[in-house]
């Protein structure tokens, strides 16, 4: 597993929607939770392109260069 961050303060967390029904609603609520509870964490919502079991290399590249952590919603 990847090393964990010391804290989420000032970090960018990617919220990744794998495309299952309802994932977008859940992740938007999580976004709202962060702005209320951890306002100095930046959240970026992304819908993964391509079918759910396939990789989205462009998104992974973006996260690697701009993100510090990922929350991924799987299932509906």
């Amino acid at each position, binding site marked *: 597993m990847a090393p964990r961050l010391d804290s989420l303060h000032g970090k960018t967390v990617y919220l990744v929607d794998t495309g299952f029904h*309802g994932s977008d609603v859940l992740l938007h*609520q*999580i976004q709202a939770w962060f702005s209320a509870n951890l306002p100095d964490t930046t959240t970026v919502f992304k819908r993964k392109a391509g079918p759910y079991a396939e990789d989205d290399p462009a998104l992974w590249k973006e996260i690697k260069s701009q993100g510090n952590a990922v929350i*991924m919603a799987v299932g*509906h």
Partner: protein
Amino acid sequence: MGIPSAPLVTKAFKDLAILNAAKRGMPHERICFTPHPIWGKTPEEVRAYVEGPDPVTGKPLMKEVVDALTVPLSEEDKKSGTVSVSTGPATFTDTADNLQEFYLNNGYTDFLPIILPTEERVDRMMRATSHKPDEVVGKMAAGAYPPWSYSVRQVAASAVMAGCRPEYFPIVLAIASSGMASLFSSTNSFAFAMVINGPIRDKLEFNYGIGALGPFAQPNATIGRAWTLLSKNLGNGGIPGDTYLGSLGNNLNYNNVVIAEHEDASPWVPLHVQKGFKREENVVSLFRGLGVVPGQVARGSSANENVQFDSQMSDLFSTFTGFFGALIIADPLVAARLKEQGYDTKEKLIDWLYKNTTQTVKDYKSRNYAYLFDYPRALRGDEPWATWYKLPDDAVVPHFPHASDFNIVVAGGQTNAYPQAGNLSYGVSVSIDKWM
């Protein structure tokens, strides 16, 4: 990649998520659970999930998410290396009755009686192929799991259990070599089909006449069943909640849809020849999808002289997902009538069906699979979905994205002029002769 991540999974997938993490090499993955389902809930309801506890641990969900990303790793979490998976000893010894029970209780069966795979019976099965007992036949997985590999001997054991005669064995090996499992892990309850072509249909006395798809012949019944036993025992599939997740399940998974094409009564080229094989070759072609429905019920079915295939098919396909294709199983009477109407090749009929089976963009977008599968492809720029998603609601698009999504086979006993149609996609065709 080195980026910490916190997977959020609904509670219904708990066993799956934990097992899957372990199978994929991360047994301590920090998975956070939400109540199930999210789909169909209002934003307020989902908000309450976010602010409430993880239903598995009972701890506040968002605290857990933050911890998953920030609490330092333990020694266990950092482990690398390989762990081998145990499948038990090579042989079991007991009375016949106890062994039946033992196989059933261990999940080696479809919960129906089997022929016990004694060494003698397995040896007799293996004499029907020139391939060596230890030769690796292929690899199979029940979905997004690491595939298991298996030998000729292991395939033979499942073939014996299913009730196959030794002369059926090359077909079972051909299926196994494809690596395609008949039990696929999805929350959909998928179905699978195979089409058998070539002289082996008559040599083994396959039924392609009256009741072709039903329980009326040994090769149809046991080869279909063997596919499911292979998928359980060799592909590690079919464990509900773990490697099988179809909510409602599918009755077709017991024996699968086995279709020996009625080549002599067909006015058209057999399926295997369409796929590039010679007529005298023996071939099994595999399909996957959702199921099979009867065609004689739909609109356009009652016109005697001139079957209205356009309205009949558009009606039938209105419930089909365009994610899978259409496999039309035509009784020879249906095929003969279509030929009289000018469809002298399968390709001509397919071309007509592809162009005339349509829907509005509005209806298309209201379909579950469009949102789930096609929209992300459109986002990636894949065609034709990228174009479809730019069209106005009243534009008309094909029900199936490509003409190649259609396949036609001929089977049935000519007691009536009805077709059946499967919402099934072509997967692969494999030579049976190679496994003789």
